[in-house]
């Protein structure tokens, strides 16, 4: 038996089972008047960023980048592989995509590759692989997450005549 029964069965119940009527009426009143109560206060509610579209997610991602990591793979002149890496971090994120790409990452790449250009032990003719990962530093536990934005590029040698 439940509250969704037909009117006729409801009337039948009212006529022949008075104690249950009281019980059921009380339960209904409790459910309707009081609904669901909350036990304990809620604090520090999280405000989710605007998402749902590519531009919203891009805005969220760019503004939350607090660490940029650079990886470069190259070959030494003796044929062995070499790896270079560095990172930079900030307590606040960039204000827009151009700032992230051209004013933060590109200078870092130019600095890193500038060093490789003058490194005689690197075989420039074989090109290099450059990966850049942009992520969040979890300020509470100091863990870095590299998953907001990235690039995965190759740099190939062109000889000027």
């Amino acid at each position, binding site marked *: 038996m439940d509250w969704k029964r037909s009117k006729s069965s409801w009337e039948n119940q009212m006529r022949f089972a008075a104690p249950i009527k009281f019980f059921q009426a009380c339960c209904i009143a409790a459910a309707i008047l009081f609904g669901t109560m909350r036990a304990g206060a809620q604090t520090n509610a999280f405000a*989710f960023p605007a998402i*749902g579209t590519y531009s919203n997610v891009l805005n969220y991602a760019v503004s939350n980048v607090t660490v940029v990591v650079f990886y470069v793979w190259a070959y030494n002149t003796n044929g062995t592989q070499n790896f270079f890496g560095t990172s930079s971090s900030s307590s606040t994120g960039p204000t827009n995509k151009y700032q992230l790409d051209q004013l933060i990452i590109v200078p870092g790449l130019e600095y890193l590759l500038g060093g490789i250009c003058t490194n005689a032990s690197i075989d420039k003719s074989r090109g290099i692989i450059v990966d850049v990962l942009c992520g969040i530093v979890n300020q509470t536990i100091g863990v870095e997450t590299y998953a907001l934005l990235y690039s995965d590029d190759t740099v190939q040698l062109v000889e000027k005549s």
Partner: protein
Amino acid sequence: MTTPFSWSKNPDGTYSVPDFSNYSTKLTGTIPFYIPNLKWARVEVSGATNAVEDTFYNPPSNPIDSTGCLDLPLAYATNSASSGGSYGLKITLFDNNTFQIFDGDGNQIPETPFVLEMAKDSNNAYITVNGGDSGRGYMLQSSSDMKNWTNGAVQFVSPLPEAAAVPPTFSWPLASANQMFFRTATTNTVPTD
């Protein structure tokens, strides 16, 4: 790989760094959201596909990554049905001591209310708790005077989809239940299996 950049060897034997004026990063396939003190999360996807990420529903699926961030696949996060896209999202979080639900646009949405349903046989009354959102903690409370309420054990709404979940039913001796009121009270408790 994207379009390669090139560096050049100059006539004097030196090398020049590439021109990065066209350099651009792109969004990764999974977008992390740092939510302080995130304890539990559940992501339900509907629309173009149906999926649930919840350790209690489908272990070891977990929308929380090893660094504690909530991860959303890019396709879901950027193509919300509430913005005219293909995927409906229901993101449920428990951080600090707060239970919250968000849609695919990141807007907070109200919780599904609990609705009590009553039944009886010759010996017992049965109170079935319908509604609520997966992972929500609650207690069934009883009172004879609607002033002093007695808490039942903490329960959690099933991680199963509503259509597959069997609502929990609590039994009471009919003689005492006849004179009692019942309600649910939510608890700010981290969900457990």
